[in-house]
């Protein structure tokens, strides 16, 4: 058989054979044409919509967070640093955050974490140190008269330095916890 097909003749035969390859039916070409036509609708718009939806979601999130930040959170400064004031937490009110200016208000997983946040503060005498807690740092000396809750320590007539503040710690849940107030807490290097 090979004798009948010299190299060039064999190549010619290959070419001719391939010219006879079956062609697609018209219905198949039409199906492919419709498939091509539908691709932008199936792919691009979906991608664009996803992009728009994604951008919209991000914008809503950013706006929401910004609004939340400005409406319900504030930043204040202790020791020259800005700190978060979480006014949304119900323990904020329990700890008298709404009674005078607050420098910082934040939650702690455990009451025992207090010294982590206030590295130079004297150890507090807190019960249930494993309980979740909420801290409110007052900007000025407590002026609410007799300290509510269970005061620990007492404000003095001495002027406070920039790193001394009265602090309320709410220990326990919002419904069943208890407030502890501490006077002249050393807030140097304080970090929420």
């Amino acid at each position, binding site marked *: *058989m090979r004798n009948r097909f010299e190299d060039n003749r064999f190549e010619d*035969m290959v070419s001719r*054979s*391939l010219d006879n390859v079956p062609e697609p039916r018209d219905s198949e070409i039409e*199906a492919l044409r419709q498939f*091509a036509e539908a691709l932008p609708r199936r792919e691009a718009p979906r991608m664009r919509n996803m992009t728009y939806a994604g951008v919209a979601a991000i914008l809503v999130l950013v706006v929401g967070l910004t609004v939340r930040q400005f409406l319900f959170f504030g930043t204040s400064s202790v020791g020259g640093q800005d700190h978060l004031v979480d006014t949304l937490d119900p323990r904020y009110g329990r700890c008298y955050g709404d009674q005078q200016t607050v420098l910082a208000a934040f939650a702690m997983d455990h009451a025992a974490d207090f010294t982590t946040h206030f590295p130079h503060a004297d150890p507090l005498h807190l019960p249930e140190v494993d309980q979740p807690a909420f801290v409110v740092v007052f900007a000025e000396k407590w002026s609410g008269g007799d300290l509510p809750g269970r005061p620990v320590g007492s404000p003095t007539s001495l002027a406070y330095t920039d790193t001394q503040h009265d602090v309320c710690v709410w220990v326990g849940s919002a419904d069943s916890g208890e407030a502890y107030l501490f006077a002249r807490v050393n807030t140097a290097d304080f970090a929420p």
Partner: protein
Amino acid sequence: VDIAMDDRLRNLVTRSVSGDGVAFSELVEPYLREAWSLASLICGHRCDPMDPMQDALLSAWKDLRKLREPTAFRAWFFKHVSRAALKSAKNERRGAQVEGRMDPGEDSIDRQVAGRTLLRAISALAARDRAVIVARYYLGLTDKETGHLLSIPEGTVKSRLSSAMQRLRASYDAEERR
């Protein structure tokens, strides 16, 4: 005429990239039949050409932004078709064996039968051998163009085509003896 065609191609590509499905359909339509046959030849008797064709259309659509020269769309699109067909050949799914049509025209019956035998022999080759043979003898591409189509170096095209043709001859002889 060429300039007008080029402008039309550029316009269709631009519109397609912007999400115009009708434009994309118009862009690919002139090449669909040839592309279908290309896919059919490369993926062989084990696959349905419609599968790689749809894959190729999808990948071409997604990559259309990367097409630097719209006037080279045909070669670029066939590259997508070849790639999809080779991939389908690996999957080895279903489909009818590639059979040449019996043309009552000028070819003798013997030649037609020989052509069909040769097509069966081509179908029996490995997909990458089929691809290089189809690129040369069906699309009529040069070594350089074939290399571009199949994403292989030009030197590899030469060696692969040579060995593929040797295997085709052997396969053809085997078919003839059956």
